């Protein structure tokens, strides 16, 4: 069965510091991987996605993620965090099972200290 684990419930970083949010997945076939961001009181916005090809994918707002099949990971990174990046981040794996099913991790809340 598909599953996604985000080991860090809450991360605090200083503005300007680098960031890495961890994501591990379990899926029997080629995974389709996503990172979404949810700002307080807002909906979900897609940051980036991996379908195939280059394992380092670039997204919006300066984010990138690297797919590592050997580690079943898809960690999200940003070299320099801005205060506006404070939000909830969700990793998800997509599976085609009659529909485009999407399984989410439990999220990582990011706090940015000025």
């Amino acid at each position, binding site marked *: 069965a598909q599953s996604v684990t985000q080991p860090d419930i809450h991360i605090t970083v200083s503005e300007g510091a680098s960031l890495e949010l961890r994501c591990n997945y379990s899926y029997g*076939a*080629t995974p*389709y991987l*996503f990172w*979404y961001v*949810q700002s307080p009181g*807002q*909906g*979900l*916005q*897609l940051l980036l*996605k991996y*379908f195939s090809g280059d394992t380092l994918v670039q997204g919006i707002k300066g984010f990138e993620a690297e797919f590592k099949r050997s580690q079943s990971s898809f960690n999200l990174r940003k070299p320099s965090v801005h205060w506006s990046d404070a939000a*909830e981040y*969700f990793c998800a794996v*997509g*599976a*085609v*099972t*009659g*529909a*485009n*099913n*999407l*399984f*989410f991790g*439990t*999220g990582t*809340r990011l706090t940015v200290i000025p």
Partner: protein
Amino acid sequence: DTAVSQTPKYLVTQMGNDKSIKCEQNLGHDTMYWYKQDSKKFLKIMFSYNNKELIINETVPNRFSPKSPDKAHLNLHINSLELGDSAVYFCASSRVATGPNYNEQFFGPGTRLTVL
């Protein structure tokens, strides 16, 4: 133009009432979804509709009934609301799944339901 819209944004109601949440997408997608986000922010699929037919019903109580009048709309009707139904409900849409290809989902802004 908003791609996936939901109404209302906030819904406060009493236990036992019946309520509906509406969702519309103008992306020309064939598949629509409802997700529930609980108080711990966990997001889980509830329903998936493809061309007005139910594909996925993930162990959701039958008090929840999705209704799709056409492929641009997927409304969620909830009967006999309970305290545990309080959550944020997200609608999403995508192109139809074809073989092994995955089509990205686009999410609406969410509806925060509070049951008193």
